[in-house]
């Protein structure tokens, strides 16, 4: 199961980090959300970002694919700064998928059309080819029987699995998950995490902002703990969860460790 799947992980002749974040700062007016964030994500990494609400985790993800423009600092893609021009930025975004907390499926499209939007409308793949790819990923997330449904007819967990298939259909190098299970009830959380777990096992590079501590501990190769716009501590999940060195991390994880 650990074998990397060619279909998901693109061939990249580059050894360095796929995504590099350098001294990233973001402020909204007077409110400082991110203060000097730096880290690297290598191919095959599953990086989970944990921390209390308002610690800047989501903003960090949104800064990586430039849905928010960083106030200062850089996001590097294969060692190069992410360009600001529209065409180059779109090319970058098509390589870095995103899964949102609120799904953001296109309401006017069916499940299949949602999936095909990327392959057909962005990568200009012929419809037949796009459909084939989409069916492959919809099957993977267990949503193939629902290709004709519209988003409003689906449960939250189903929507999120479609959203994951939509991101996969772009065959990106990295997928960013912004609290993908926070809007779901506990049963649905399970089905979405199951899909993400299998993607991690296949070697997909992922950056996951999550409040699912057990999932973060089991799935990630590295965990980042954030507080008040800073990275407090980062390292292998076994160390962060069981031997945190910082007081703030210990405090945050108290309830999780107690259970």
């Amino acid at each position: 199961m650990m074998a990397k799947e060619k279909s998901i992980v693109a061939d990249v002749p580059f050894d360095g980090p796929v995504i590099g974040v350098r001294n990233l700062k973001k402020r909204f007016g007077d409110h400082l959300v991110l203060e000097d964030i730096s880290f690297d994500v290598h191919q095959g990494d599953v990086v989970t970002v944990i921390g209390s609400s308002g610690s800047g985790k989501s903003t960090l993800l949104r800064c990586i694919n430039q849905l928010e423009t960083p106030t200062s600092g850089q996001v590097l893609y294969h060692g190069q700064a992410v360009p600001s021009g529209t065409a180059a930025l779109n090319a970058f975004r098509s390589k870095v998928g995103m899964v949102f907390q609120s799904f953001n499926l296109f309401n006017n499209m069916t499940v299949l059309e949602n999936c095909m939007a990327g392959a057909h409308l962005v990568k200009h793949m012929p419809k037949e080819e796009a459909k084939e790819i989409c069916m492959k990923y919809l099957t993977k997330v267990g949503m193939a029987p629902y290709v004709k449904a519209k988003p409003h007819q689906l449960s939250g967990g189903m929507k999120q699995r479609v959203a994951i298939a939509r991101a996969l259909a772009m065959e990106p190098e990295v997928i960013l998950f912004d609290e993908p299970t926070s809007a779901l009830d506990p049963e649905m959380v399970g089905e979405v995490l199951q899909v993400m777990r299998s993607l991690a096992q296949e070697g997909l590079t992922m950056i996951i902002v999550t409040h699912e501590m057990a999932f973060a501990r089991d799935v990630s190769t590295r965990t980042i703990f954030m507080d008040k716009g800073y990275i407090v501590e980062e390292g292998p999940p076994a160390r962060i969860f069981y031997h945190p060195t910082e007081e703030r991390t210990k405090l945050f994880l108290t309830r999780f460790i107690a259970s």
Partner: protein
Amino acid sequence: MPTSFWGWIVFLIQQYHSSYLQGLVTTLAASLSGTVLGCCLGFVVGVIQTIDFQKSRSPLQNVLLAIPWTICKIYVTVFRGTPMIVQAMVIYYGIAQMFGVNIPAFRAAILIITLNSGAYMAETVRGGIRSIDPGQVEGAQALGMRYVPMMAHIILPQTLRIIAPQIGNTFVANIKDTSVLNVISVTELFYITNVVAGTYFRMFEAYTITAMIYLTLTLVFNFLLRLLESHLAGSSSYEIIPSEQLAPAQEPAR
């Protein structure tokens, strides 16, 4: 000569039914084509009105975008802020006097209704676009989708659904408002009625017939629009594809 109210009504219908019919056809043709063209214009203007001036764009790009934005703003303000009857006079006689061209009254009518509805539709479209969840835009941006396909395939189809009732209302309003175009001698229903009423000097009867025609038209079209709306809302069920019909692509994750 008839002596009663109803007698006159019947008499006028017998005498002038073809004139009334001609007026009705003109009214419908002018308001329908004006509404359709006005919607197209409204969509263009409405989309331009939603352009926001981001710092990420170069100053030159922002200036180039500001020109159409300003033109649209002025257009919407002027046409929403003046009565259609005045617009009709200014445009019809203005074109004749300034350019020395006499455009046929019917074409002028379509032009005026288009410009007038376009201004109102632009505001409706702008509001419709603004009301769409920003998540839709972000979903498209995160895929790397460019602005034009995003608008064409995601934002505008949803906008159309939202504002469909408003387009219908505009059409029904235009059926009635076309009557003001009698001032530029468009032979629509009101103008025809004026001629009919004048012949025997039976104002009350002639306009009662016209009122009934307008009322019938608006009732019929309101009904048709309701049907269309519920059709647009779409079915609430969907078809599940049985697993044996699915291509055996890969082991499902669950």
